[in-house]
């Protein structure tokens, strides 16, 4: 065993500090990253034994590139020549690192072992390209670095398809950084891992991938990650909404929205560069496979003026003249989306430079191409993104610049505004057979949120903007009116379905009047569903779907025949027999008792104790009996025990107060909210009643407290509809009476707010 000196472990480099803003800002940026790397290098080198030939310590990953974020891991390889006692040398290095609470990814390999692992695993291959000598036998390190680079150059073109598959799977899991409101800076498409791949593809000699724009985007993404680590205080790569403001401040940006825009722009640059790189690799592989192409390239016509060549769409010779057709770029995009092939880069650049602006109003062929593009299905998103990259969308739609990468602030949204609109058009294609005018559905879906970012209610602000766009693209006046209506009323059906009593004739007649005709009703129904699906997983549920379908059915009937639905009959089981009576049926709970006062509140309390959320409630008096009916959903997934629930319900209906006492005690501990609750009165939208709408944070027993407050204030509650979005609730209470006196309304409103 050779003699070597093992150094004593010295103190690890200092952890990132807090302190004033300027101190923290000093820890962001390329210089700070290099400094952190240098400190780690020195510490690791000090721990490495002196006079030890045939062993070296190599950094890969972030440390290898000197891109160390404040809380990054270390990626180290201990390289050796079959040295005896290598396990003790390894332990002497790794244990101090673990004890310093630094993350460590380690391996101990001989040169042939390292090359063999790299040969079989493309991710390891890519990692070794960043290898950098830290300590020990420099010649040994240099040998590995050279051999790894050489092996990569020889095998990359064969390995790239495998890398592309892994990348596509990763993107499917993590989404696209350019459009997500909370994207992972490292793993999402267009993030830091993709930059590493770009570097590797460049090193393989496939294409010049690391252009200035990509380098700049890389530096800005690294700075953003530095700031995120400092803001959170540990290794987190996902830019969550609550950290945006702090990160923006550290980066000296105006606010969280500006940060999101910057990240989106950088992610797009990286994603587009990677797209180009894959295509270059494909061309290289097919070129190598076939040998030198013989004769003229094969061009297959796809649409008027558009041909396919080598798997990409290019312009036919007929299209290129002194005065090109202004609808050409739209037609090329429509063709590309329909056949799901990419547009050649040169073609995009030519179109951006030479395609003349469209006349106003647009000719029919341009409008048809837009509709065809929006309705193309799976090909829409990649084609849209390519057109956006080259500025073609801005030429079609000047309003697009305002909407690009616009953040959305409600937590139920996953996407930025631009992607949400295109996604809505994509989702709308599923419903095109249900409407008379699928073209208006697609245009309406694409424009439905065009009012976001403008002051005021976005439906009302967006309607005139949408009307102007609709007129500009050449729709006849009747269609422009339809599009305007769709945008103005796109939230009507979901709001009414979840917050109003569908059996009240006034609800149906109000909607029927607003909508006007059946064709528009069908369009609004399809649009509401497309919008929900394009928002995020929390925006849709089967319950909402059924309510909306029921509303549409009743409004359909009203528009068709002028008939309004009759109020529903109460449960016949409760009309006869002993009191109190309880009937449980799936998600419906019905209770009958002798006395009306406080019954609804007490039953609500009982349901809350059994962890059931109420979505709708109706109260009535029939033949001197008070009957309340509730529709419920279990709060935590598993349904309540029906026997225990029925027993408790019978007790509360008989006047037992123990349940409400227990709920009051629990509710006291659970309260706490951020925004203050609000109350809005709506009159003349219900039969013989006014609606009191409460917007507040959801909490157990809220319905019970408010119903009790309404009882105490002397208001008679006929029905309640509860709609939940994330952690907020909108409760609509139908209070019997005309409620014409403003002081009366204020008194009740105050009582409700005090109870929240």
């Amino acid at each position: 065993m050779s003699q070597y000196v093992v150094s004593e472990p010295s103190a690890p480099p200092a952890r990132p500090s807090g302190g004033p803003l300027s101190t923290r800002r000093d820890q962001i940026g390329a210089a700070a990253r290099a400094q952190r790397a240098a400190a780690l290098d020195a510490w690791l080198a000090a721990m490495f034994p002196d006079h030890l030939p045939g062993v070296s310590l190599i950094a890969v990953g972030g440390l290898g590139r000197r891109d160390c974020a404040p809380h990054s891991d270390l990626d180290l390889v201990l390289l050796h020549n079959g040295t005896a006692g290598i396990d003790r040398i390894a332990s002497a290095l790794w244990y101090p690192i673990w004890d310093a609470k630094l993350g460590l990814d380690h391996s101990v390999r001989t040169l042939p072992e390292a090359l063999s692992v790299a040969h079989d695993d493309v991710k390891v291959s890519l990692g070794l390209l960043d290898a950098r000598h830290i300590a020990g036998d420099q010649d040994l390190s240099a040998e590995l670095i050279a051999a790894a680079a050489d092996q990569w150059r020889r095998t990359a073109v064969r390995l790239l398809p495998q890398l592309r598959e892994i990348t596509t799977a990763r993107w499917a899991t993590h989404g696209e950084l350019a459009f997500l409101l909370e994207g992972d800076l490292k793993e999402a498409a267009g993030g830091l891992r993709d930059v590493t791949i770009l570097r590797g593809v460049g090193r393989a000699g496939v294409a010049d991938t690391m252009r200035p724009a990509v380098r700049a985007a890389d530096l800005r993404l690294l700075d953003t990650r530095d700031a995120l680590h400092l803001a959170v205080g540990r290794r987190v790569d996902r830019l969550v909404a609550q950290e945006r403001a702090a990160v923006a401040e550290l980066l000296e940006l105006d606010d969280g929205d500006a940060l999101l825009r910057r990240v989106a722009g950088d992610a797009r640059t990286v994603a587009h560069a990677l797209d180009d790189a894959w295509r270059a690799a494909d061309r290289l592989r097919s070129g190598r496979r076939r040998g030198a192409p013989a004769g003229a390239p094969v061009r297959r016509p796809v649409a008027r003026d558009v041909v396919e060549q080598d798997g990409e769409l290019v312009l036919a010779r007929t299209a290129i003249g002194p005065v090109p057709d202004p609808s050409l770029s739209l037609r090329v995009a429509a063709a590309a989306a329909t056949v799901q092939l990419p547009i050649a880069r040169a073609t995009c650049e030519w179109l951006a430079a030479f395609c003349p602006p469209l006349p106003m109003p647009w000719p029919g062929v341009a409008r048809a191409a837009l509709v065809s593009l929006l309705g193309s299905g799976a090909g829409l998103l990649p084609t849209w993104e390519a057109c956006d990259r080259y500025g073609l969308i801005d030429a079609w739609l000047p309003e697009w610049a305002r909407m690009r990468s616009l953040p959305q602030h409600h937590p139920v949204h996953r996407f930025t505004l631009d992607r949400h609109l295109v996604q809505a058009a994509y989702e709308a294609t599923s419903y095109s057979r249900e409407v008379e005018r699928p073209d208006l559905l697609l245009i309406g879906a694409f424009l439905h949120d065009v009012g976001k970012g403008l002051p005021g209610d976005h439906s009302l602000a967006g309607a005139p903007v949408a009307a102007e766009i609709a007129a500009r693209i050449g729709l006849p006046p009747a269609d422009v009116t339809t599009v305007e209506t769709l945008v103005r009323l796109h939230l009507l059906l979901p709001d009414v379905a979840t917050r109003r009593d569908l059996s009240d004739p006034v609800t149906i007649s109000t909607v029927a009047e607003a909508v006007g005709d059946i064709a528009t009703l069908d369009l609004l129904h399809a649009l509401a569903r497309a919008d929900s699906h394009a928002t995020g997983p929390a925006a849709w549920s089967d319950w909402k779907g059924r309510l909306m379908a029921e509303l549409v059915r009743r409004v359909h009937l009203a528009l068709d025949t002028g008939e309004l639905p009759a109020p529903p009959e109460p449960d016949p089981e409760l009309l006869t027999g002993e009191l109190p009576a309880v009937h449980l049926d799936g998600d419906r709970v019905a209770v009958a008792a002798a006395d009306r006062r406080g019954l609804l509140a007490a039953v609500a309390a009982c349901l809350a104790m059994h962890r059931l959320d109420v979505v709708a409630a109706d109260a009535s008096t029939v033949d001197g009996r008070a009957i309340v009916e509730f529709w419920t959903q279990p709060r935590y997934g598993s349904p309540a025990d029906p026997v225990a629930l029925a027993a408790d319900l019978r007790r509360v209906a008989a006047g037992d107060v123990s349940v409400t006492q227990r709920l009051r005690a629990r509710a006291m501990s659970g309260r706490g909210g951020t925004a203050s609750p609000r109350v809005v009165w709506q009159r003349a939208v219900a039969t013989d009643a006014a609606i009191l709408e409460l917007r507040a944070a959801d909490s157990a027993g809220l319905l019970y407290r408010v119903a009790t407050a309404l009882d105490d204030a002397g208001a008679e509650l006929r029905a309640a509809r509860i709609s939940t979005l994330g952690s907020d609730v909108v409760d609509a209470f139908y209070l019997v009476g005309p409620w014409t006196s403003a002081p009366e309304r204020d008194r009740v409103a105050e009582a409700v707010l005090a109870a929240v």
Partner: protein
Amino acid sequence: MKLVTAVIKPYQLDAVKEALHALGVAGLTVSEVQGYGRQKGHTEVYRGAEYTVEFLPKIKVEVLTDEIDVEKVVDAVVTAARTGKIGDGKVWVISVDDVIRVRTGERGLDAL
């Protein structure tokens, strides 16, 4: 009353059992589990791909004890299970609301 849970290396089980027996601990439960910690299941001289994570077989030991003795129990387990190498595991303590002896129905400390 407290529940002391320990995840340890399988071949340290005998040492831990002896140490607890010497303390007078009346009973314990043992299960075979898998796990990993910061080192992702890799040995000191691991040579595979860095980003993979491996499960290693471990033993989980659970002991019910009262508040007074819990520190002694924890110290005994930690000392007996320690080898000084990665993979030694962790011990943690949680509060227990009630314990019942099935055969007699005794509750609380009487059931320990």
